[in-house]
C-alpha cells in the first residue's frame, strides 16, 4: 500500500500539467480537476484506514534510504488532514466552477488549484524539514497566482503584502534550516528529533522559538497575523474559502509537527505558546467586531480560532493535543463552509458589506439556515462540532491547571458568538441601511445562485454536522493521534528502521 503515500502529491501535479495541455477546452479542464480530486479523496480515505490499523506508512523517494533521501511519511495526523483537505478542496472546486467570475475567465485557474492541492498534501506528508520548505513554496506559489488572478488593483496591492510576508517567512525558514543543519548535520525530521535532544538546552529553545516564528507567520498567530485580514478578502470567494480553510491550518500543522516531534519536553516554549494563544484569540475577535465587510469579519475570526488551536497545543498533554486535532478537522470544514456561504451572499446581492446587505431571510431562507448552523458551530453552541472542540479544549486546560488562558478562551467564545450574530442580524434580518449608497463597488445583484455553488455549500455544512454526529469515533481517533504525537518513537522508528 506504499504507493498511496506519494499519490496525493504526484497525481495533482500530473493533473496540473494535463490541465494546461487541454487549456483550450474548459470542459476538459474541469473533468481533469474533478477526477483528480475525487480520486485523491478516495486515496486519502484508504490511507486513513491503513495508517490507523498498521501505524505510519513510509516511502523513500527514489529508493534512497532515510537520512540521505527524501522521506514521505503518513502518520495519523498527516493522513486525516490530507483527507479533510482533499474533501474541502473538491467541494470548493465544484463551487468555483459554478461561480461566474472565477474559474471561467482564467485558463490557469485549474492547474494552479491542482498545484495548490499537491503543495498542501506534500506539506502534510513530508518527513524532511527541507522538503517541508519546498512543499510550502509549492503551495504558496500556487496561492500567489490564485490570489492575484484577476489582476485588479486591490488584488495586486494585497497580493504584494501577502507575497512579501510569505517570502520573509520562507527566508527565515531557510535561515532556521541552515542553523539546524550546522548544529545537527541533518534535515530529516526523525533524525533531527534524535540529534536535537543532544544539543544544549538554550540552543534547543532557540530553535523551537525560531521555528515557531516561521510557522507562526503562516498560521497567522499574534503578532504575525496582520497580513491575513488584509489579503484574504480581496481574492474571489472560492479562493478565499480554500485559503481560509486550509492554508493557515497547514501552518498550525507545521507548528504541531515541529514542536512535538523535534523538541524534547524541556525545550518547548509552553508559556510563550499559551500567552500568544490568549492574545491571538482576543485580538482576532476584537478585530472581527470592528469590521463591516463579511469576508473581513470571517478572516479575523480565523485568527481568533487559530489562537484556540495554539492554546490546545500549549498544554502539551494528550487531552490538549487530541482537542487540537479535532478542532483542526472541525475548523477546516466549518470555516470553508462559512466563506462559501459568504460567497453566495456576495454573488446574490452584489456586495458583502454588512451595511449594504439586508433582509436575506426573506429571499434566501435556506441560505440563512445554513449560515446559522455554520456560525453557531464556529461560536461553539451545542450540539454542533464547535462546541465539542471548545469543550475538549477547555476540559484539557482545566485538567492541566491553566485556568487564566481557559477563562480568556471562554470570553472570546462569547465575543465570537456576538460577531456571528452581528452578521446574522445585519445580513439576514434587518433591512439594508444604505441600499443605493456609494455605488461603484457594488455589482448588480444576481438574484439566485447556480446549483453548482449551492451544492458544495450544502455538502460542507452537512459535513460539519457529520463531524459533530460522529464525534465519538473522530475524537477517539484524535486521542490515538495525540498519543502518537506526544510519544514520537513509532514515527522515528518507522523512518530510521534498517
Amino acid at each position, binding site marked *: 500500500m506504499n504507493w498511496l503515500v506519494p499519490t496525493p502529491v504526484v497525481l495533482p501535479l500530473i493533473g496540473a500539467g494535463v490541465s494546461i495541455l487541454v487549456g483550450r477546452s474548459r470542459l476538459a479542464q474541469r473533468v481533469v480537476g474533478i477526477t483528480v480530486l475525487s480520486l485523491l479523496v478516495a486515496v486519502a480515505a484508504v490511507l486513513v484506514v491503513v495508517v490507523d490499523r498498521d501505524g505510519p506508512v513510509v516511502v523513500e523517494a527514489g529508493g534512497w534510504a532515510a537520512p540521505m533521501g527524501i522521506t514521505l511519511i503518513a502518520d495519523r495526523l498527516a493522513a486525516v488532514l490530507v483527507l479533510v483537505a482533499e474533501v474541502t478542496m473538491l467541494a470548493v472546486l465544484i463551487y468555483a466552477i459554478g461561480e461566474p467570475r472565477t474559474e471561467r475567465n482564467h485558463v490557469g485557474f485549474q492547474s494552479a488549484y491542482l498545484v495548490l492541492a499537491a503543495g498542501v498534501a506534500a506539506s502534510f506528508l513530508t518527513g524532511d524539514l527541507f522538503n517541508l520548505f519546498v512543499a510550502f513554496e509549492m503551495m504558496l506559489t500556487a496561492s500567489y497566482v490564485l490570489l492575484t488572478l484577476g489582476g485588479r*488593483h486591490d488584488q495586486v496591492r494585497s497580493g504584494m503584502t501577502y507575497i512579501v510576508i510569505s*517570502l520573509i517567512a520562507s527566508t527565515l525558514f531557510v535561515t532556521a534550516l541552515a542553523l539546524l543543519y550546522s548544529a545537527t548535520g541533518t534535515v530529516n525530521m526523525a533524525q533531527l528529533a534524535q540529534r536535537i535532544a543532544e544539543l544544549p538546552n538554550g540552543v534547543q529553545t532557540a530553535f523551537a522559538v525560531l521555528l515557531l516564528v516561521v510557522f507562526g507567520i503562516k498560521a497567522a498567530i499574534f503578532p504575525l497575523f496582520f497580513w491575513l485580514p488584509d489579503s484574504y478578502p480581496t481574492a474571489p470567494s472560492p479562493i478565499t474559502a480554500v485559503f481560509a480553510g486550509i492554508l493557515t491550518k497547514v501552518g498550525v500543522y507545521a507548528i504541531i509537527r515541529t514542536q512535538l516531534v523535534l523538541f524534547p519536553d524541556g525545550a518547548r516554549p509552553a508559556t510563550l505558546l499559551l500567552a500568544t494563544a490568549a492574545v491571538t484569540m482576543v485580538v482576532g475577535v476584537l478585530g472581527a467586531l470592528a469590521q*463591516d465587510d463579511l469576508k473581513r469579519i470571517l478572516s479575523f475570526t480565523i485568527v481568533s480560532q487559530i489562537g484556540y488551536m495554539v492554546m490546545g497545543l500549549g498544554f502539551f498533554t494528550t487531552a490538549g493535543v487530541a482537542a487540537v486535532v479535532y478542532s483542526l478537522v472541525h475548523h477546516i470544514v466549518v470555516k470553508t463552509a462559512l466563506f462559501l456561504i459568504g460567497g453566495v451572499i456576495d454573488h446574490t446581492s452584489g456586495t458583502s458589506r454588512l451595511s449594504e446587505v439586508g433582509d436575506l431571510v426573506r429571499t434566501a431562507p435556506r441560505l440563512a439556515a445554513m449560515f446559522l448552523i455554520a456560525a453557531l458551530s464556529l461560536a461553539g453552541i451545542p450540539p454542533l462540532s464547535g462546541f465539542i472542540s471548545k469543550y475538549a479544549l477547555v476540559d484539557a486546560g482545566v485538567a492541566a491547571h491553566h485556568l487564566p488562558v481557559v477563562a480568556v478562551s471562554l470570553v472570546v467564545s462569547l465575543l465570537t458568538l456576538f460577531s456571528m450574530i452581528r452578521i446574522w442580524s445585519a445580513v439576514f434580518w434587518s433591512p439594508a441601511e444604505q441600499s443605493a449608497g456609494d455605488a461603484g463597488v457594488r455589482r448588480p445583484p444576481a438574484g439566485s445562485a447556480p446549483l453548482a455553488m449551492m451544492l458544495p455549500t450544502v455538502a460542507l455544512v452537512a459535513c460539519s454536522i457529520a463531524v459533530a454526529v460522529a464525534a465519538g469515533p473522530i475524537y477517539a481517533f484524535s486521542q490515538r493521534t495525540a498519543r502518537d504525537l506526544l510519544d514520537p518513537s513509532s514515527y522515528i522508528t518507522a523512518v530510521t528502521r534498517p
Partner: protein
Amino acid sequence: MTVTLAGVAAVLFGVGSYLLLQRTLSRIIIGLGLLTHGANILLITAGRRGRPALVGRGDPGTFADPLPQALALTAIVITFGVTSLLLALAYRSWLLTRDDEVQDDVIDRAVARHDAVEEEIADQRELVASEEAG
C-alpha cells in the same frame, strides 16, 4: 572563512531589512533579494565547506558537504521564481496606479476613520442632491 561568510550574511540581512521597510515596491523587492541571498549564504556556511566540490572519486572526507549546496540551489531557484512574480506584480501595480509606492489599504482607513468617512459620504450626497436640484 566562516567569520567572513557570517559577516557577509549579516550585512545582507541588515541592508535587506532596511530596504524592506521602505514604501516603494522596487526597493522592497531589491531588499527581499538581498535578504534571501543572506539566507542562502548562511546555508552554504552550514556543513563542511571550503573544499573541492563532489566530483569524481576519492576520500569522502576531502570533499565539501554537497547537501547544503543542493539545498541552497533549490532555495535560489524558488526565490528566483517568486521574485519574478513579484516584479510582474510591481509592474502591474505601476500600470494601474502609475506609482511605485504601496497604497494604503482602503478599508483599513475606512475602519480607522469610521465617522469621518460617513460624514464625507453624507456631504457628498448633499452636494449631489443640491447639484441635481440646481
